[in-house]
């Protein structure tokens, strides 16, 4: 058998080694590059004050935070969650419920994240035993069940949902200011999701997750406590989407079951992660921005307006068939020298 040297994940070890020797500040040029891109793009609307651009970037940052979170489960642990939007929706509902009862955003949004984390913990106990397609199907079932439940749950307004009184924004400097405020908070959350992703990837915990992704039975035999590791991965992948959900619907002013638990949003998250590169830190960010850029184009083009989801599905098929590692994964494989810059 021919020995073909391959170095695709050499940088992981290099990053880990570096992380051991240096402090967080200097340890990965790739992390800083990633954060710099996010900051430059994120602060651009603030510098120009352009509200239309802000709305475009808002959608991108929202996607970055969600895709980056999903990647912890999908990319590092190898579990495909088709219903990840359930955490966005539940966080949104819990946040909106508390906001409508007079709680401030600073407590309501984290409460949304906490609720999603708790849901992930409980769900994890039940469905993380399932492998492969069974897990993916169960996550879809849970999203649909949650939508049906909320539809009939009177405290959350049933099918009509929850609307905020417009007065509520005066507490945040008026509606205009509140929009900027949510924007900055979202930018912060996107950055946190990227840092979290990096920390997980370069930690011992992350090594255990990747062992599970590669061969769960072998990981168990080597001592990885797989139920705990998977549950933590699931919880970590759920919290930020929960906070983001609360933030999004605060900005939106109202929430309904069909907005909160849109299954196709889940599929779009998967496309973003796969497009950019599952299991990388940079990939989900680029995939999210790239996908939203494309979608923005499709929505404004009358020709494609109605076929966005078909395009997302077709894109997913093409990625799986031709670049299963995603854009960043592909670059890492073909340009080993760039790896330190492409975490």
């Amino acid at each position, binding site marked *: *058998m021919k*020995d*073909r*040297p*391959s*170095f*695709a*994940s*050499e940088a*992981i*070890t290099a990053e*880990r*080694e570096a*992380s*051991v020797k240096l402090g967080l500040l200097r340890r990965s040029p790739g992390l800083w590059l990633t954060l710099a891109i996010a900051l430059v793009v994120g602060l651009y609307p603030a510098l120009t004050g352009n509200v239309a651009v802000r709305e475009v970037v808002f959608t991108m940052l929202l996607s970055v935070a969600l895709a980056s979170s999903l990647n912890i489960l999908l990319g590092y642990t190898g579990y495909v969650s088709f219903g990840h939007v359930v955490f966005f929706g539940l966080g949104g509902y819990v946040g909106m419920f508390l906001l409508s009862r007079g709680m401030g955003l600073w407590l309501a949004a984290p409460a949304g994240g906490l609720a999603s984390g708790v849901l992930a913990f409980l769900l994890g106990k039940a469905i993380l035993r399932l492998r492969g397609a069974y897990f993916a199907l169960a996550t879809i079932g849970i999203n649909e069940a949650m939508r049906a439940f909320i539809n009939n749950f009177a405290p959350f307004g049933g099918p009509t949902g929850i609307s905020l009184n417009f007065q509520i924004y005066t507490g945040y400097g008026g509606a205009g200011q509140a929009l900027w405020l949510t924007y900055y908070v979202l930018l912060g959350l996107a950055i946190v999701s990227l840092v979290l992703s990096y920390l997980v990837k370069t*930690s*011992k915990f992350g*090594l*255990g997750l*990747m*062992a599970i*992704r*590669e*061969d769960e*039975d*072998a*990981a*168990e*035999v*080597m*001592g*990885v*406590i*797989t139920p705990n590791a998977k549950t933590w991965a699931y919880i970590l992948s759920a919290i930020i989407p929960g906070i983001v959900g609360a933030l999004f619907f605060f900005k939106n002013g109202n929430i309904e079951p069909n907005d909160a638990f849109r299954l196709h949003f889940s599929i779009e998250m998967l496309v973003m992660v796969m497009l950019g590169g599952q*299991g990388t830190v940079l990939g989900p960010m680029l995939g999210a921005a790239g996908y939203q850029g494309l979608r923005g184009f499709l929505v404004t083009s009358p020709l494609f307006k109605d076929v966005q989801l078909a395009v997302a599905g077709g894109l997913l098929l093409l990625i799986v068939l031709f670049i299963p590692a995603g854009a960043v994964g592909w670059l890492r494989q073909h340009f080993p020298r760039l790896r330190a810059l492409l975490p």
Partner: protein
Amino acid sequence: MILELQQISKSFGGLQALSNISFAVPEGQIMGLLGPNGAGKTTLFNVINGVYAPSQGHVIFRGHDLKGLKPYHIARMGMARTHQIVRPLKDLTVRENVMVGACFGREGHNLAEAAQIADDIMQFVGLAERARQLAGSLNVAQKKRLELARALAARPHLLLLDEVLAGLNPAEIATMVETIRRIRDQGVTIIMIEHVMHATMKLCDQLVVLDYGKQLAAGTPAEVAANPQVIEAYLGDPKLAESLMDDAA
């Protein structure tokens, strides 16, 4: 005794894969597990390290009954194994594979310590130049050494080796046999499943022979090779048995 098996039985549906297996492994020895294909050797390993719960019987490891414990509990108590059909973590590097063993095995090291241990052990099993390759890109002999390296990185008290010599050429066998001996000399108790008779006879202090899930014989290599039942049922050829007795002597 580091390990005691008490009347272990295991059935898969109607198939009785193991019936009433009992033996004990003294600390610091190499115990050989022999038997034709399908005899239940790998199944016995799976019962010992918690992959399967036995249908009946008890596994006692360092004084603890392993009943109800999962493979990861048992791994952390100091038992490590290799797989007959290799299971590399393909998209991780060789070093990362070995680090998994060090991080989650008996000593539970952090990443920095695990990297050090991995480097030592890759040197020891001859994988040092492969450290940065993806495990999926190794050839079969290298993957077998990777299995061994991962298991060793856990710094186990007891090491289960499932056919680590199978598929290796004579030179590779000689290297592996030497490696196994050095592991034993470091104080690790070993149970090894093997088909390569010469090597097994020379290396093992004790042998247990399985046939159709039953324990056919147990004892020193000389005793086992002289056992008429073993000769008849397993070794078949009396001449082969004689030459093996010479090896054992």
